[in-house]
């Protein structure tokens, strides 16, 4: 019985993934845009969830990596004519280096201080880039790929990273690192005495999240074509990620998937009413935290034992 469920489960998932992977083939332009955004937000949300839901690190500063990833691509393509995809990867690497530097400061901080530390770094970057002649101050930069890039190509890149992020998190949690993380999530100090390297595990997750976020931001900005500091380093990115993960279900792999879907749907719906949509999102998130703190997938898991992508070992 359980076996059949497993087989059905994996078949359905494979079909969904295949459907998602072929959108440029069967979908309208609008569908391509919709699912591309979904994949991009999915990757970022998975990373935020990896930090907050599994490593106990609340990051209010993922936008640091978004901005850095985007600007790397912009600078390399605009000024030096480097291949756009190399730029994307370098954006990811630059983000890792930034994360490493940040960790020197913020990994000394606990809990709330850590969260605000990440935010302050992002704000500092915002100010820095706004005042930097090299990137044309606040007026922003264009992303100029050396050859023409089709929407489909961008989409496939987003798809790979989006689904890849889910696979990455899944594999990570099934690994030794993951077992340690799940122990840490429950009790930091006890797991430390058991030999779990708390500090190292958290650092790895932080670096990984920086890398993926940086890369996916690069892809996003290839699509956007234009980047500006006040948007790229804005707290808005974190706001969206927080809401996606909280509503979808923090600490579950499926949560960010559901959350990203809901967010993209909502933002399409309420495209003209940006402020109202943010307000509504904020209100929903608060209600969710109060009434169903585990989010949609988390509550389903708890009440019905319903886990699709479980990293548990039996």
């Amino acid at each position, binding site marked *: 019985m359980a076996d059949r469920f497993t087989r059905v489960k994996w078949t359905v998932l494979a079909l969904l993934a295949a459907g998602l992977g072929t959108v440029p083939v069967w979908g309208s332009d609008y569908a391509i845009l919709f699912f591309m955004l979904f994949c991009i937000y999915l990757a970022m949300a998975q990373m935020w969830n990896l930090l907050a839901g599994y490593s106990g690190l*609340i990051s209010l500063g993922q936008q640091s990596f978004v901005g850095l990833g985007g600007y790397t691509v912009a600078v390399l393509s605009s000024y030096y004519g480097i291949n756009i995809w190399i730029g994307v990867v370098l954006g990811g690497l630059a983000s890792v280096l930034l994360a490493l530097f940040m960790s020197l400061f913020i990994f*000394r901080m606990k809990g709330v*201080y850590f969260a*605000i530390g990440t935010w302050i770094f992002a*704000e*500092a970057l915002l100010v820095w880039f706004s*005042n930097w002649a090299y990137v044309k101050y606040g007026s922003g930069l264009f992303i100029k790929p050396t050859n023409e890039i089709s929407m489909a190509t961008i989409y496939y890149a987003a798809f790979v990273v989006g689904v890849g992020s889910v696979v990455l998190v899944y594999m990570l949690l099934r690994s030794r690192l993951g077992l340690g993380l799940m122990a840490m999530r429950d009790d930091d100090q006890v797991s430390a005495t058991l030999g779990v390297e708390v500090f190292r595990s958290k650092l790895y997750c932080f670096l990984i999240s920086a890398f993926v976020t940086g890369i996916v931001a690069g892809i996003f900005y290839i699509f956007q074509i234009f980047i500006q500091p006040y948007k790229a380093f804005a707290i808005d990115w974190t706001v969206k990620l927080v809401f996606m993960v909280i509503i979808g279900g923090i600490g579950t792999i499926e949560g960010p998937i559901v959350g990203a879907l809901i967010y993209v749907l909502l933002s399409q719906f309420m495209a003209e009413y940006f402020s109202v949509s943010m307000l509504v*999102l904020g209100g929903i*998130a608060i209600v969710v935290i109060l009434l169903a703190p585990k989010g949609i997938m988390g509550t389903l898991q708890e009440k019905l034992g319903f886990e699709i992508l479980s990293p548990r070992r039996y």
Partner: protein
Amino acid sequence: MEGLAQDILNALLLGGLYAIVAIGLSTIFGIVRLVNLAHGDLMILAAYLSLFMASALGVSPLLTLVAIIPIMFVIGYVLQRFLLNRVLGAEMEPPLLVAFGVSIILQNFMLMTFTPDARSLMSDLSLMTFPLGSNLNIPILYLIDFCIAVAVIIGQHYFLQNTYMGRGIRAASDDKYAAELMGINTRNTYAVAMGIAIMTAGVAGVLVGMTFTFYPHSGPQYLIIAFGVVVIGGLGSMKGTFAGGLILALAQILGARVFGPGYQLLCGYIVLLIVLAVRPQGILGRG
């Protein structure tokens, strides 16, 4: 070297303003272990309310404080009593995220209601200065900010040290269970503490609105200032709050002097990050 003395004088007075910006955040963090991410936005809300009242009634913004103070107290009380109390618990994330949600809601609400235009609580005081000696001028507005800040902070300190309710707040923050055994209704106590914190935030907001221009999204920058003061000066100490305000203001003003006005905020951030990394309990904080 010219202008340095003036800069330092300005920083001194501005430090007082920063201190009152921070005191609300510090109080709540020290007592309920909650970082009110909506702190800055509540300040700006008060500024808008004051703007509305001042123009409707044709009075000076300072006068609107008479109404703003009780209004903000009630807002803080209600916020804590009916929303934040529910998420207080062992974990740090839910209150943080709820406060974050409130912050976003407030900012967008203000954006929709008051439009994104820059605003200011202009008054005759804005441009007046008072000469001190031959080289210095005291901006009257900064001086008023400073004096009100000192009065509010000392007043709050006295309240917490010498009244039953104040001691009750401190007791409830030390040991909630034991406090309840004393007959302290901790749900009410926490709400009162938040009421006080938001009340001071309201005063700070009006002062800030009189001193600088503000937008619906100005909240977070003051939250960061508040946080900076708390980190640099340490929690739970009145002297620390003033010291933190002063140091932060100095860092900003001197930074702007050396590197240029665009780097004002950045210098503040850098000092803050360094203190966070090297001495997280603050320069005057208890280990």
